[in-house]
């Protein structure tokens, strides 16, 4: 079958559009890889992965990424501690308890939270949540991991609740009826039958949220401080991997120097972490879909 010339042109155009995003991704990976490779020509990979001091911008340079990694971990864990229980409970409410009218209003409102620009969350953390927390926690610094962690938890909450709710609603009604028919209450049905049946979907939601928290930049750049510290203490200023990349990008570090290349090494690590989590998440979701076809 032969296509007319116009159709061929359209097909070519569509192909180029598709290629653009794939090409961009490939380009990012190549740039990251090239610069990272150059970085590890000068700095030992062992020092990078095991060192506990991160001072590439100082006279005495140390390239241990662990303080940044720990900073990212502390903030992300706080965010998940806020988002996972709240998100799951609201998903259970929306999927198992809420009347259809309530669900139709609450779910979109919750999803609006996801549309708020992160810079707004950042200043919300710095100028509202931190002062509020300081009233109860006098030892809390103006910049800290706790406040941006909590606010980031609020930001990823809709992601957790919305995706978990989708997973729970995909559980066949027959399973719920099977539980009710054995004398299960609504709560028992929700917690013991629906949640386990939706487990892989819920896990996928949580992992996606974790990946989002790890990659989140603006909130931590604004409210967490810029002091790479090897500490799990959430009350003092720290620096995350993303915040460090912002710091260098906004500064006057000359291109091609070792300091400049640090952001690519950190960026590569960040990319690998979120990429692995996203892969895990989509693998879990695919498995979930298979179970109930």
């Amino acid at each position, binding site marked *: 079958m032969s296509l007319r010339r116009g159709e061929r042109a359209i097909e070519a155009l569509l192909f180029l559009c598709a290629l653009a995003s794939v090409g961009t991704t490939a380009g990012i990976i190549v740039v990251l890889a090239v610069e990272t490779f150059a970085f590890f020509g000068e700095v030992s990979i062992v020092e990078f992965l095991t060192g506990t001091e991160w001072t590439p911008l100082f006279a005495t340079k140390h390239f241990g990424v662990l303080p940044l990694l720990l900073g990212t971990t502390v903030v992300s864990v706080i965010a998940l501690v806020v988002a996972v229980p709240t998100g799951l409970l609201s998903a259970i409410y929306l999927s198992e308890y809420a*009347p*259809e009218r309530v669900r139709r209003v609450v779910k979109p409102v919750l999803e609006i939270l996801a549309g708020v620009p992160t810079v707004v969350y950042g200043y919300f953390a710095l100028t509202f949540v931190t002062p509020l927390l300081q009233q109860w926690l006098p030892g809390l610094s103006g910049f800290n991991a706790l406040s941006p962690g909590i606010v980031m938890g609020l930001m990823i909450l809709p992601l957790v609740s919305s995706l978990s709710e989708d997973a729970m609603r995909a559980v*066949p009604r*027959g*399973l*719920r*009826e*099977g*539980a*009710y*028919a*054995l*004398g*299960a*209450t609504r709560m*028992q049905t929700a917690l*013991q*039958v629906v949640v*386990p*049946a939706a487990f892989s979907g819920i896990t996928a939601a949580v992992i996606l949220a974790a990946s989002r928290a790890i990659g989140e930049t603006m909130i931590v750049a604004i409210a967490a401080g810029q002091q790479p510290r090897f500490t799990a203490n959430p009350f003092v200023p720290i620096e995350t991997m993303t915040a460090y990349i912002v710091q260098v990008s906004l500064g006057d570090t000359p291109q091609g120097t070792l300091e400049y290349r640090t952001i690519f090494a950190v960026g590569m690590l960040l990319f690998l972490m979120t990429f692995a989590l996203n892969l895990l998440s989509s693998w879990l979701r695919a498995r979930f879909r298979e*179970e109930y076809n």
Partner: protein
Amino acid sequence: MTTDVRPLPPTLSSVVRAGTPVAETAPVKIDVRNLNFYYGQKRALDGISMAIHANRVTAFIGPSGCGKSTFLRTLNRMNDIIPGARVDGSVTIDGHDAYGSGVDVVSLRRQVGMVFQKSNPFPKSIFENVAYGLRINNLTRSKAEMAERVEESLRAAAIWDEVKDRLHESALALSGGQQQRLCIARALAIRPDILLMDEPASALDPIATQRIEELVYDLKKAYTIVIVTHNMQQAARVSDYTAFFWLGRLVEYGRTDRIFTAPAEKLTEDYVTGRCG
């Protein structure tokens, strides 16, 4: 009437003989009076009254959408979970009003077990599927007692020999017929008095269907069974009583052999002989 061309297994041929008219000695287990059921504004059941006898198999037949499944689900209040559903009239089980104000739906459903059209094992192990009802209702005191009840239920559902060596594997790995018998075992584990079966064999092949039918025959010694079926041969084979539903009404109800050989209503005769529906 249409006759079954398949040869009946020995246990089942006796079922058909059991339908000869004799005075009913079994007490009334479920007494339904003037029951109406509404989905929103739509009336799905219209003034149903019938008495279902203990230790008998009662079959509900009728075309799709005639209300037979809806009626079955009013007997254990399974329709309660449907938004906009409403019931009036009365359902009395062992002399107690199932829709009374002080009734605990959970204990009602413990007394009135249910098996569904599509087998619905939980995504848990075979053992845990059967143990689930025992756990949530705190029916056993020790692990040993739990294991005993699980085995007893699996034996009663005629599936023990097939699964005894893999009790801790996922129930989802079983075949369709095995899953359905597992669901029957799950329903039996909490020792209900009444077992409601909503087209339990409609998704199964003839061999699996025959096993379910034999099981129904065995189970009626201990349980009152109400079975919805779209298969008239099945109704004739397994049931003592048959109720014919049409457009939300109960058209005719009586001994299965009479319904199939000498129906009082023209509509029933047309349906059981395959002239309509």
